[in-house]
């Protein structure tokens, strides 16, 4: 490209021959915004006419600056002269120009207090909405028994594949690794007592009671709740959910129930896979580094396995499933039209579901311990 250094900066000089006349020249464009400001500030007092006919180029910013200058110096804009080819631009801008001070944004202590108040109210609303949504879901689930035609089998199976089958490898791999880590950890402590073999009980109890279901739920909260929110939120943004409503269909039937049922079916199955993989991880560490042969490990595992651990782990799975699916869908339905809202809701759904899973798991652990089960 040919770059010619022909940028004449804007200039404003009083005409010595004609006192009271300011002659403008150069380029009065956005590029020279600061130079324009300086030239105008430095212009002498006692000006009554401004001659801008020698200006090379002028754009909206140049005209705006001249208008402001005229306002500040109390000049009559009718005494500004422009070339004919510039006049339409000047007229267009003069038509719409007026003074309007920029509104101040309050950033003080009061504003911070206000934000805090709004946050508290919003959180309260969120909790109420979740409870109400849970109620709505239960009512509409019961309605399915009366009107089975509302049930969407294809959609449910599709989501079962997406949330269940597709995440099985990931769940298995991560559980295997955590199982191995727990075995190492146990061995490190138990070796000092010469009780390395108790690693088997440790891994058994840890995975059947807690980690199998907890790992699965956290993984699905990250992987599935966010997907649900994004899918449904995008549909809200594109008015698809409104279209569902005006067609006389129910978004809960169409979008929420298949997702809830899919997760309800798949999370316990994935939990089972996680338990098996975790136990296998423990066994692998036992066989390869703790000198417990696989056969011995397996025999001990079978001997010490208690059904109650398995039950404690498994009963939590459906609770987590409903929780994750509900939060994911509800956040999706609350998306409000913008890309930013979609992002905020997706984050919120992951944060909410993971924290709820951990809180409920902790409460359940306390309860089972107190019940001596």
């Amino acid at each position, binding site marked *: 490209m*040919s770059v010619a250094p022909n940028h004449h900066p804007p200039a404003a000089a009083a005409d010595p021959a004609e006192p009271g006349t300011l002659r403008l020249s150069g380029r009065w464009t956005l590029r020279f915004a600061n130079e324009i400001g300086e030239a105008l500030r430095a212009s002498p007092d006692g000006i009554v006419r401004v001659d801008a006919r020698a200006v090379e180029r002028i754009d909206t910013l140049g005209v705006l600056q001249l208008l402001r200058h005229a306002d500040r110096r109390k000049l009559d804009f009718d005494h500004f002269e422009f070339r004919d080819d510039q006049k339409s631009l000047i007229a267009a801008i003069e038509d719409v120009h007026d003074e309007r001070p920029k509104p101040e944004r309050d950033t003080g202590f009061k504003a911070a207090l206000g934000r805090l108040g709004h946050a508290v109210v919003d959180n309260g609303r969120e909790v109420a909405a979740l409870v109400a949504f849970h109620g709505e879901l239960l009512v509409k689930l019961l309605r399915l028994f009366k009107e089975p035609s509302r049930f969407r089998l294809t959609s449910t199976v599709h989501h079962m594949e997406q949330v269940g089958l597709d995440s099985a490898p990931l769940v298995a791999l991560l559980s295997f690794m955590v199982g191995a880590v727990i075995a190492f950890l146990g061995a490190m402590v138990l070796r000092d007592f010469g009780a390395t073999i108790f690693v088997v009980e440790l891994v058994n109890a840890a995975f059947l009671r807690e980690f199998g279901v907890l790992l699965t739920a956290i993984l699905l909260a990250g992987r599935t709740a966010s997907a649900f929110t994004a899918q449904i939120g995008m549909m809200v943004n594109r008015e698809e959910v409104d279209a569902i409503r005006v067609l006389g269909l129910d978004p809960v039937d169409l979008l929420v129930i298949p997702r809830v049922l899919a997760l309800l079916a798949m999370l316990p199955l994935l939990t089972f896979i996680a338990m098996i993989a975790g136990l296998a991880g423990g066994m692998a560490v036992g066989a390869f580094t703790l000198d417990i042969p696989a056969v011995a490990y397996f025999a001990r595992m079978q001997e010490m396995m208690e059904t109650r651990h398995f039950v404690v782990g498994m009963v939590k799975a459906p609770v987590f499933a409903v929780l994750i699916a509900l939060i994911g869908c509800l956040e999706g339905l609350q998306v409000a039209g913008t890309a930013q809202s979609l992002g905020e809701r997706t984050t919120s759904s992951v944060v909410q579901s993971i924290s709820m899973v951990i809180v409920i798991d902790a409460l359940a652990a306390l309860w089972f311990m107190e019940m001596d089960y």
Partner: protein
Amino acid sequence: MPAATMQTLDGVVIGDAPLIRVRGLVNRFGDQLVHDGVDLDVRRGEILGVVGGSGTGKSVLMRSILALRSPEAGEIRLLGVDGRSRDPVQRRHIERNTGVLFQDGALFSSLTVGENVQVPLKEYYPELPDSLRYELALLKIKLAGLPADALDKLPSQLSGGMRKRAGLARALALDPPLLFLDEPTAGLDPIGAAAFDELIRNLQQALGLTVFLITHDLDTLYAICDRVAVLADRKLLAAAPVAELETLDHPWVQEYFNGPRGRAAREAT
């Protein structure tokens, strides 16, 4: 007048050459050939309307010119530089001197209208004082025909027609000499569409713009376009004033201009 013939844009001498010059453009989606040797000139200071049936690649042509997609073959010269160049200096030159209005405005949904208009100003002229930038944004919004209180609204709070006006205000933020409009009147009611046509015409004259305008709207063609380019059969069939196109012997052109809607639009002018 010398300013018109030796116009320069930030040091790039363009002279009399067309602002946009496309030669032998080829675009392909998989097996489907959309453009097979499209040639097009957009002259300085004109409003060029681009028409064509659905799927003839009007938007693809615009996206190719703007380097939003890279065509299979062809030469594009834009504002005196190579439009396909990846050189950051040349890209910046092109981006600073073009304004684009996408179909639904493409406003940033998390920013207010005023902030949307200020985005290009902030990016290219960070040294501009806040108050001046704010006033400039307000001016652009009012030039685009929006009330001043639209400034603090979010795009989701505006109607479709207002969103287009806000998009136009953002496209005009840097006073670009070249403006691309993708179906500016689509989705507007007839009164709003006529007002938007007039707005484009007025702004084009006041700001000395060159406009590349994709449209389906026959009224727009008759009301404001200096020339109309017809895309059909994967080529640019013709680029001429509307009156000449009506006589062109091509089935699509005949049906388009001499169908009931075409006749109505012609009689309205």
